[in-house]
C-alpha cells in the first residue's frame, strides 16, 4: 500500500477536497487495486475452511467498504438450505428488513439467473413466473444492484447492494469491477459449501460412532490416538476420573491411553496385532484400579486410511462385566434348578417303584384269592426284589451321583425280559399286544441294570399311555434289539397317539408333559440314564400313527479281538 502513493497522501479532509483530476484517476486505479487485494486476501483466508458464513460476512463487509455502501445483503443456499429457505446475512438497514429476510426463491429465479449471471441493476431484472416480482421487491427494499452467484449452472446465492453513501450511481466501471470480484469469489463460496458438507459428514460419522455402546479407539501408524468415541472416553474416565474433555486425548500415545498400571499387559497384546488383521478378537481383558474392576471384550485390527495414506489401529472395547455377572447368576440359578429337577426325578422314580409294588400286591391278592399259593409266592418274591431295588435307590437319594451308574457286563435282553415280566400283569398293559424281537446275538456290555430297568419302564409306561390316549382297539408295542457293529441297538415302537414336532424338540427337558396327571420328569431321568451309558436316541414319530424310540448303546469292549469293531477302535 505504502508504495502505491504514500507520497501523494493528504493529511486532512480539507486537502482532499482540493485534489486535482490527475490524482482522481490514480485514485480510481488504487481503488481497483484495493478491491482486488482485499479479495485475494479473502480468497486465501477461506480457501480451505468450511466457514462459509465467515466468508460471506467478510465479503459483504468488503463490498460495502469497497463500493461505499451502508446496506448490503446475501441470500445463500448452502447444503441444508433450499431456494425457499435461504441463509440470510445483511448489514445496515437491510438487517431488519422483513421482506428481504423472509424472501423465498424458486426454480424461476434459478432459471433466470443462470441465464443472466452478471451483476445487474435491480430495475433491469426481468424474471418471470413466480419470480416476476423479484425486481420490484428488491427496489422497494432499497437495493440497487443484484449479483447472482452461479456455480456449475446452479444459483447458489444472490448478493444485493443498496445505495452508495455518496448518493452517486454505480458507474459501468464499478459494475465491471464487481463482475470480476464476484466471478473470482464464486468458486471459493462453492468450495466452502463443499467443506461444509464434508464437515457435516464428519459430524454425522462421529454421531454414529458416539451412538455405539462399545468404546472405539482409532490410533495412527505411530500409535497416537486419532479418534475416540464417547463410550471409549467414558471407559477411560472410569479409571481416571480427572479426564475432563475428549479433546485432551488427541494424539496421545497408546501407552498413555492404556497405561500399564491400570490396563496391565494390554499394550504388549495390542502391539502384537498384525497389519493385515481386521477385528481380531483378543480374549476378555480384566481391568482393575482400586476398587473398580471391569471386564472388556477386546477387538483390535488395522485398516488402511486412504485420506492419511496411513494404516489405523482400531480397538473396540465392549464392557461385558454385567454380562459376566449375569452369567454367573444364571449358572448359580441353573445349579439350584438342577437340584430341583433331580429331586422331582427321584420322586418320579419312587412313584414307579410304588406302582410296581402296588401291581405286585394286587397280583398276590388275586393269586391268594384263587388259592394259588405258588403264584402268590412267586409274585411276593418279585415284590421283594423290587423293594430291594427301591432300597438301593433310596439309599443313594442324597447323592446325585447315584445316577452316575454302577455298570457291569450284563445282557440287555435279560433286563428287557425282566421288565416285561413285571409289566405283563399290570392293568395298564391290558389289551396291548407286546411283541418282542430280541436278537440273541447281541453281546453283553457294561450297563447299570437298575437304571436300564427304570429307562425301559418309562418307555413301556409312556407307550401304553400313548396307546390309551388314542383309544386304539388293538394296541401294540414292539420291542427289538439288534447288534450293529460296535453298538447295541434297542428300539420300542407303539401305535399310539404320536408326538408333534414341537413337543419332540423339548421331549427331554424338565417339566414337559402331555399327560393330564404327568409331571414331565420321567424323560429327564431317561436322558440322564442315556447320558450315563453314552447312548444316542432317535425319535421317529407321526401324529396318529405312533412312535419309535431307537437307542444305540456304544459298547466299550469289542465282541472279540478279531472283530471289525476292534479294528475300528
Amino acid at each position: 500500500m505504502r508504495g502505491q502513493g504514500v507520497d501523494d497522501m493528504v493529511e486532512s479532509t480539507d486537502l482532499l477536497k482540493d485534489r486535482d483530476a490527475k490524482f482522481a484517476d490514480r485514485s480510481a486505479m488504487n481503488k481497483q487495486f484495493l478491491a482486488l487485494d482485499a479479495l485475494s486476501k479473502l480468497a486465501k483466508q477461506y480457501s480451505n475452511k468450511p466457514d462459509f458464513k465467515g466468508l460471506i460476512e467478510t465479503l459483504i463487509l468488503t463490498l460495502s467498504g469497497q463500493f461505499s455502501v451502508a446496506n448490503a445483503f446475501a441470500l445463500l443456499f448452502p447444503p441444508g438450505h433450499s431456494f425457499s429457505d435461504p441463509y440470510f446475512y445483511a448489514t445496515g438497514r437491510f438487517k431488519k428488513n422483513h421482506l428481504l429476510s423472509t424472501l423465498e426463491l424458486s426454480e424461476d429465479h434459478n432459471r433466470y439467473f443462470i441465464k443472466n449471471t452478471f451483476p445487474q441493476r435491480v430495475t433491469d431484472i426481468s424474471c418471470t413466473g413466480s419470480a416476476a416480482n423479484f425486481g420490484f421487491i428488491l427496489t422497494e427494499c432499497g437495493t440497487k444492484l443484484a449479483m447472482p452467484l452461479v456455480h456449475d449452472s446452479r444459483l447458489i446465492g444472490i448478493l444485493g447492494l443498496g445505495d452508495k453513501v455518496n448518493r452517486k450511481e454505480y458507474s459501468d466501471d464499478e459494475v465491471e469491477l464487481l463482475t470480476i470480484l464476484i466471478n473470482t469469489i464464486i468458486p471459493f463460496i462453492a468450495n466452502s459449501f463443499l467443506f461444509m458438507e464434508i464437515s457435516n459428514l464428519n459430524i454425522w460419522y462421529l454421531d454414529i460412532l458416539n451412538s455405539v455402546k462399545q468404546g472405539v479407539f482409532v490410533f495412527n501408524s505411530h500409535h497416537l490416538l486419532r479418534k475416540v468415541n464417547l463410550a471409549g472416553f467414558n471407559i477411560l474416565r472410569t479409571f481416571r476420573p480427572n479426564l475432563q474433555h475428549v479433546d485432551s486425548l488427541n494424539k496421545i500415545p497408546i501407552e498413555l491411553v492404556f497405561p500399564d498400571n491400570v490396563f496391565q499387559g494390554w499394550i504388549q497384546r495390542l502391539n502384537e496385532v498384525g497389519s493385515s488383521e481386521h477385528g481380531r478378537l483378543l480374549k476378555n481383558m480384566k481391568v482393575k484400579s482400586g476398587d473398580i474392576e471391569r471386564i472388556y471384550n477386546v477387538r483390535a485390527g488395522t485398516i488402511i486410511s486412504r485420506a492419511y495414506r496411513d494404516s489405523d489401529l482400531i480397538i473396540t472395547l465392549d464392557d461385558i462385566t454385567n454380562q459376566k455377572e449375569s452369567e454367573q447368576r444364571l449358572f448359580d440359578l441353573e445349579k439350584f434348578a438342577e437340584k430341583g429337577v433331580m429331586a422331582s426325578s427321584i420322586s418320579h422314580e419312587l412313584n414307579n417303584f410304588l406302582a410296581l409294588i402296588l401291581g405286585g400286591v394286587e397280583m398276590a391278592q388275586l393269586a391268594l384269592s384263587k388259592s394259588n399259593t405258588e403264584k402268590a409266592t412267586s409274585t411276593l418274591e418279585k415284590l421283594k426284589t423290587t423293594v430291594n431295588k427301591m432300597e438301593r435307590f433310596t439309599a443313594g437319594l442324597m447323592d446325585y451321583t447315584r445316577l452316575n451308574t454302577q455298570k457291569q457286563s450284563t445282557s440287555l435282553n435279560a433286563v428287557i425280559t425282566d421288565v416285561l415280566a413285571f409289566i405283563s400283569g399290570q392293568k395298564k398293559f391290558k389289551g396291548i399286544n407286546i411283541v418282542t424281537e430280541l436278537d440273541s446275538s447281541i453281546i453283553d456290555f457294561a450297563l447299570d441294570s437298575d437304571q436300564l430297568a427304570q429307562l425301559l419302564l418309562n418307555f413301556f409306561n409312556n407307550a401304553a399311555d400313548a396307546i390309551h390316549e388314542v383309544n386304539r382297539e388293538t394296541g401294540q408295542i414292539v420291542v427289538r434289539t439288534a447288534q450293529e457293529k460296535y453298538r447295541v441297538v434297542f428300539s420300542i415302537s407303539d401305535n399310539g397317539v404320536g408326538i408333534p414336532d414341537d413337543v419332540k424338540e423339548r421331549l427331554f427337558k424338565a417339566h414337559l408333559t402331555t399327560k393330564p396327571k404327568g409331571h414331565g420328569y420321567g424323560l429327564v431321568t431317561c436322558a440322564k440314564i442315556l447320558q450315563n451309558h453314552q447312548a444316542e436316541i432317535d425319535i421317529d414319530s407321526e401324529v396318529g400313527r405312533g412312535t419309535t424310540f431307537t437307542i444305540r448303546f456304544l459298547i466299550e469292549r469289542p465282541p472279540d479281538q478279531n472283530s471289525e469293531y476292534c479294528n475300528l477302535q
Partner: protein
Amino acid sequence: MNTTTIMSEQLTEDTIMIDPGGQLDNSNAHILSEAIARAQASGFKYIIIDMKRLEFISSAGVGSILGSVELLREVNGDIILCNASENIMYVLSVLDLTEYLTIRSSRIEAEELCGVRE
C-alpha cells in the same frame, strides 16, 4: 491472521469511545462490526472510533463502520473517526468516503463534537 484489540470506554450517557488497535482487515473486521453493533444496541448515539493505535484498515474494516453510520444519523447520532493515520486517510480517500464520514484530527475535537467537552 492479523490480530486487533478493541477497547471501549463510555464517555457520557450518549457517547462511547471504541479504540481498535493493530491491523483491521478481512480476518477481524467482524470484531469491530460487532463492537459497533453492541454499542448501538446499548443505546449510544455517538460512537467515537479513536484510530490512534490502528495501523491499517481494509475495505472490510471500512464496511464494518459504514453499516451503522446511516442508522445512527437517523437518530441524530453519528460515528466519528479521529486520529486516523496517513495510511488510513489514504484508504478512506480512495474509497471516496472522506466527505461522507465524520472525521476529526484529534480525540478532543471528536469529543467536542459529541458534547463530551464544552
